[in-house]
């Protein structure tokens, strides 16, 4: 078996008496892939990604990175291991240029802390082209506030790529975006994957998820209830499965 990039084994996490995750297994392959993490509100999606990105420590279970078990998993360690989280519209500074956004906090500097502006601009230009950014109106020195929601998401994705993320966690990247804008974001993600970066795509919207992901993991009330891939299902089938899960829940609680 090939070595997996990330493997979570029997992860459990509870907050007080509420069990958020119960014996969850999850993995990301060694070669780049796009995995959709689907589930209703409160299914445990955010808890799971916060464990992966090191924000939460699991109560029990093991985390393996590149086949090796890690202890004391933290945000810093996750970043060092090449895991970047991309939040929708957050972590951008809107009145600044695309280039400044990509390099903020990690500027390329030369003598006496002066910024290598031309280098940053050229790098930002290259990165935006790498993710397939097509805009005849805007350039790497354009202000981010002028970009559309999808394009801004592109800036955040380009930034994650610059720091050579092996795994990019996208938290609801298409929420509140129009159809064409979502399509743009999906394209960026596909390009990132071609470039060798895996993605965890979190979404409520099965159609968006189906469009871009190769593997689907459905969470429900802290448990993985369904794992399937593109070869074995269709978007319609996934919707049906989700409805079935929801129906069982209602009957269960009734």
């Amino acid at each position, binding site marked *: 078996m090939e*070595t997996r990039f990330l493997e979570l084994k029997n992860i459990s996490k509870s907050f007080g008496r509420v069990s958020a995750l119960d014996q969850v297994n999850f993995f990301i392959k*060694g070669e780049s892939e796009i995995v959709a993490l689907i589930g209703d509100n409160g299914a445990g999606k955010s808890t799971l990604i916060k464990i992966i990105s090191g924000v939460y420590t699991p109560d029990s279970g093991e985390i393996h990175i590149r086949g090796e078990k890690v202890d004391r998993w933290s945000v810093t360690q996750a970043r060092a291991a090449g895991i970047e989280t991309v939040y929708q519209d957050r972590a951008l500074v*809107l009145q600044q240029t695309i280039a400044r956004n990509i390099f903020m906090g990690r500027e390329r500097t030369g003598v006496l802390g002066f*910024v290598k502006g031309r280098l940053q601009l050229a790098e930002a230009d290259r990165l*935006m*082209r790498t993710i397939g950014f*097509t805009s005849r109106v805007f350039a790497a020195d354009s202000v981010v506030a*002028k970009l559309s929601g999808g394009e801004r998401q592109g800036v955040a994705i380009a930034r994650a790529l610059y720091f050579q993320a092996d795994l990019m966690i996208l938290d609801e990247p298409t929420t509140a975006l129009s159809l064409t804008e979502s399509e743009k974001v999906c394209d960026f993600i596909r390009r990132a994957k071609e470039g*060798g970066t895996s993605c965890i795509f979190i979404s409520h919207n099965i159609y968006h998820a189906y469009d871009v992901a190769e593997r689907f993991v459905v969470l429900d009330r802290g448990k993985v209830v369904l794992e399937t891939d593109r070869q074995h299902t269709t978007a319609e089938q996934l919707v049906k499965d989700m409805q079935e899960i929801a129906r069982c829940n209602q009957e269960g609680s009734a």
Partner: protein
Amino acid sequence: MAVLDKKPKSLDLSEEFRRPGRGITDFLDKNRRALSALLVFVILMLFFLIANPKVFLGTGIYEAVFTSLPIRIVLVLPLVFVIVSGEIDLSFVSNMTLSLWAFAATAKAGWNPFLSALLAVSVGGFVGLVNGLLVTRVGLPSLMTTLGMSFLLQGLAIGGARGPGTTGIPLTFLEGTPFYNIFVGRIGNLPAQMVWALVFLVVATLLFNYHKFGSHVCCVGDNLESSREMGIHTARVKTLAFVYMGMAAGIAGVLYGLIYGVFFARFKPGDLMLAVLASAFIGGTPTWGGVGTMIGALFGACTVRFIQTGIIEAGLTGFWTQFFNGLIVLLALAAHKLHEPRYRY
């Protein structure tokens, strides 16, 4: 493990993305705030030229203006840093008074004036540090913190300087010394302090536009949370902006003492503070943080300074100065508002 040692494959790059601009429209777009500040200044000067060509084509009025304008330039540039970082400083004029006291008292006691000036800048910088720590570490709002600090420093200068029979310290004994000539002497008809102010402008512009510090100041004022998430030390950046403001207040204090030849504790700070604040905003720096301009602030300082002399020279009585002062401030701000770039929020 071979499969894991993946280097990003080289992808074909999108050719459609526009190249960063070098054209005239890009230049206009990037410098729109500074340019509209320049426009306001040019229109004002044209108005004055038409109203009183004799005075405004002569050199006398410029000599007068360039004598005191440098103090404002030295104050307004760091103030723009503080405003762009999302804060405000109302204590800089009181800080100036306190620093000047430190300078005057030690110089009169026989210190080398260079050393006294260094002390003044340190005092100013220390006050800035306290402001910065109160705002970033204690979490007080800068508007109220620096207002309180302003009263405190003013009180300290008045109370502390009231030694036996001294309400002021004359500094005229420095006239003609090398120290005096270097900083406020004359280069032909030009006051030396104007040259120093322009040097200060170059340094501030380099810091703001090309240095990591300027970049961080913009990011922090634009979105504090985003900056923190991306690893910018937000508290340190803001504190440094306050320290920079404080040190500049120290420099301005020394210049003031040399130009007017006296330290006076009961110096009324209100007018100068409002003039410098107005300069920053007329200079094209908006109130909300994240963006600003150094060269614009220079034009703003010139505009405000020339209004005050110009209105009288243009033939209006002194009683109306204040009114037109206010009117021009409001018109300038409205002009900037109309000239704002369109953003999508």
